[in-house]
């Protein structure tokens, strides 16, 4: 009985097993990470796909930048120009220092394109790359997650990067002394009794900004991926019965609807992450 049950589980995983399997990263240890926080582990799939997406995005933009013309632009150049112009306009509206924009503009563009491409990995059929990977390795339980932004490490890595840029500009614009002074006197005012309150507020603000920045993107993509998995389970439950057929049709309908809606989420989340990056860096430029 137990052997038979085990065999059945190996051949056709239950819904829970399917989802857990799909939410487990291919990491450097070879098995699922046990502790919540373990800095000796690295998610190989997240790294591969995020670097791949970054390289693809930047390569395309670099190709355009190399043959860029101020005359009549080609379609590709026009497309890149539209995105760049959009990012540049937003940056101009939020970060008022032209000197800072030389770095902040490209940073925002990179963030937008990179996150857009990473989010777009969600459009690939859910089991396509994992199945190919399992066929290549010959291990039918090989883990692979293809959406780097549905990994908290990926999004928090980027939001911490933004935090570092913010701290850099805080120190650069206000001077180290000026920034420390601000940490203790803003937002409530300069009074020795208020120093600890101000400092605590500032620390909470930095922490909240960074965590919410990373969590927002992660949450959206993670939830999106999860919905795709649930839809996939619907189709997987297909049988030659009335319920089975309606499940199959439901899979197609829900899958199409969610994929179309996801186009919005993919672009929107990339845009929101970019805008918040600009807003946080812009705040670092403003003295209280």
């Amino acid at each position: 009985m137990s052997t038979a049950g085990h065999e059945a589980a190996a051949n056709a995983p239950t819904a829970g097993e399917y989802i857990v399997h799909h939410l487990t990263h291919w990491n450097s240890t070879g098995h699922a990470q046990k502790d919540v926080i373990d800095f000796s582990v690295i998610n190989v799939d997240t790294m591969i796909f995020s670097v791949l997406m970054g390289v693809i995005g930047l390569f395309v933009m670099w190709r355009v930048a190399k043959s860029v013309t101020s005359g009549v632009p080609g379609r590709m150049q026009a497309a890149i120009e539209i995105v760049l112009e959009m990012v540049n306009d937003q940056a101009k509206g939020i970060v008022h220092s032209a000197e800072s924009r030389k770095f902040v503009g490209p940073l925002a563009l990179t963030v937008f394109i990179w996150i857009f491409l990473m989010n777009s990995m969600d459009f690939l059929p859910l089991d396509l790359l994992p199945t190919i990977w399992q066929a290549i390795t010959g291990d039918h339980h090989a883990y692979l997650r293809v959406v780097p932004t549905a990994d908290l490490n990926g999004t928090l890595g980027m939001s911490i990067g933004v935090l570092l840029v913010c701290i850099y500009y805080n120190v650069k614009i206000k001077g180290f002394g000026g920034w420390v002074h601000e940490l203790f006197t803003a937002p409530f005012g300069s009074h020795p009794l208020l120093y600890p309150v101000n400092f605590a507020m500032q620390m909470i603000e930095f922490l909240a900004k960074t965590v919410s920045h990373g969590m927002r993107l992660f949450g959206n993509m993670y939830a999106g991926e999860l919905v795709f998995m649930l839809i996939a389970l619907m189709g997987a439950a297909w049988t030659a019965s009335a319920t089975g057929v309606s499940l199959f049709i439901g899979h197609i309908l829900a899958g199409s609807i969610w994929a179309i809606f996801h186009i919005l989420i993919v672009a929107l989340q990339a845009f929101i992450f970019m805008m918040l990056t600009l807003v946080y860096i812009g705040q670092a430029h403003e003295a209280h």
Partner: protein
Amino acid sequence: MNLNATLFAQLVVFFILAWFTMQFVWPPIVKALDERAKKIADGLAAAERGKHDLELATKRSTEALREGKEKAAELIANAEKRGAQLIEEAKLTAKVEADRIVAGAKAEIEQEAVRAKEALREQVATLVVSGAEKILRREINAQAHADILATIKQDL
């Protein structure tokens, strides 16, 4: 949702990508965009200038046309005046010439008349003499009365 070292790796990748964009992607495209904006602005200014020039040229050409018409009208009027003058002059000359010819003819006629009278006088004298001779031949010698005859001839 486990946290691990991927976070730091992603952080590093983030900055490398941003650096690459800042170095190789952003500046040429922004430069091209600025250049195109300038080109378009120049083109618009040139078009504006062209329009203004066209207006001026139209005004000038109208002016020239008007002037030309005026000049032509003036020329025609002058020519007409001159033509009339020429005709007038020609008429005058013709009249003078005709008068002269008429006067010449009259003088010639008079002269002719005088000559004819002279000739007639000669012939009449001869006739008279021959008549008288015939008469006198019977009566007197012609030579004897020649001087009388000459005096008569003178008086005729």
